[in-house]
């Protein structure tokens, strides 16, 4: 069971909204699925993200994947230490492994709650 205090995209990102700020990361399933994480690229504070559009990239086993934003808005904080400590992402994808915080202007229309995301994972794994 994934935490139900936040919402998820099918592409395995989560966002936890507190007031008008969303904390965004990727799920434990995504981390496990990517296996050997090598590089992570995150945007800078002050840049904007759009719901459903990529905001970062992550590399594992010579495979690069886009990371998509569940919300639109301006980035107010970035987990600057994370790209140099990807073990944190492996150990705690839902808390210490957060990636960016965004002042939210709108959210993606296709966000799922925790149980909905669990169902999606079951389907994706066949």
């Amino acid at each position, binding site marked *: 069971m994934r935490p139900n205090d936040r919402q998820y995209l*099918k*592409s*395995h990102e989560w966002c936890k909204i507190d007031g008008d700020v969303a904390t965004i990361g990727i799920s434990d399933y995504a981390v496990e*699925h*990517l*296996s*050997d*994480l*090598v*590089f992570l*690229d995150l945007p800078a504070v002050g840049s904007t993200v759009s719901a*459903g*559009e990529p905001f970062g*990239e992550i*590399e*594992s*086993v*010579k*495979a*690069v*994947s*886009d990371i*998509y934003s569940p919300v639109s808005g301006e980035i107010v904080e970035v987990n600057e230490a994370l790209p140099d400590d990807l073990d944190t992402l492996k150990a705690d994808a839902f808390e210490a492994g957060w990636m960016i915080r965004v002042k939210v202007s709108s959210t993606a229309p296709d966000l799922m709650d925790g149980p909905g995301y669990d169902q999606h994972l079951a389907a*994706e*794994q*066949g």
Partner: protein
Amino acid sequence: MSRSDGASLRVVRSGALSPALNLAIDDVLLTQGVGTTVRTYRWEPAGLSIGRFQDPKWFADVAGTHQLVRRSTGGGAIYHGDELTFSVAFDARVGWDTDETYVRIHDAILRALASIGARSQRVPADAPAPSPRAQKNAWCFAVAGRHDLVAPDGRKLLGSAQRRVRRPRDRILLHGSLVLGRPQATPFVAAVADQVAVDEIRARLDDAVIDELATSLEPGSHASERPLTSTELAEAAARARRFELAEGANTL
């Protein structure tokens, strides 16, 4: 479109194109393509491609006449001279995670090589991956890691990398380089020319790579050659700039 409905498999033989355009075409087939495409291509002029997270400054002084480009895929730098390059772009599917995709595609290439008399073997899946941080300034072919195809002498024969996008469709691109003749810039690579006279097998190897990839990706499907459309070429031309690197620049 399900995979069991006899969906056709598209084959694109691009011939020799510029490095940036080659990468842009793969990007178009990944992000705008539908179904499964197998593509073969070559490089004119020669290319030096670095992985998405590599620093171009390490490769600024490499001798030779080539265009420096940054791939959207991972891994290390490759000098693209006399080689057969292939790409596959397809909808993500259950069971084909990153590792399994390498295994299946590399085994197809292994069979294609065997058909023209070149021996290779795949490094087992439980072998360690190359040291992550060392990849920042590394040549792709310098060290063989898990899933890589190696020649009988243990040197790496196939370099490949992947990219996955999940929107608008969940799709995977894998492209790979089979070195035919060894480039001066990377004298440590294994080359098909070490085992067979490449001028006699170029066309046959091209066909074998396409056939084996088609069989692996879409068994039982009908493969048909469908060249890039003018719309796709125009889109690729517009994206090509994104892959070009001036020395020391980071344009992605």
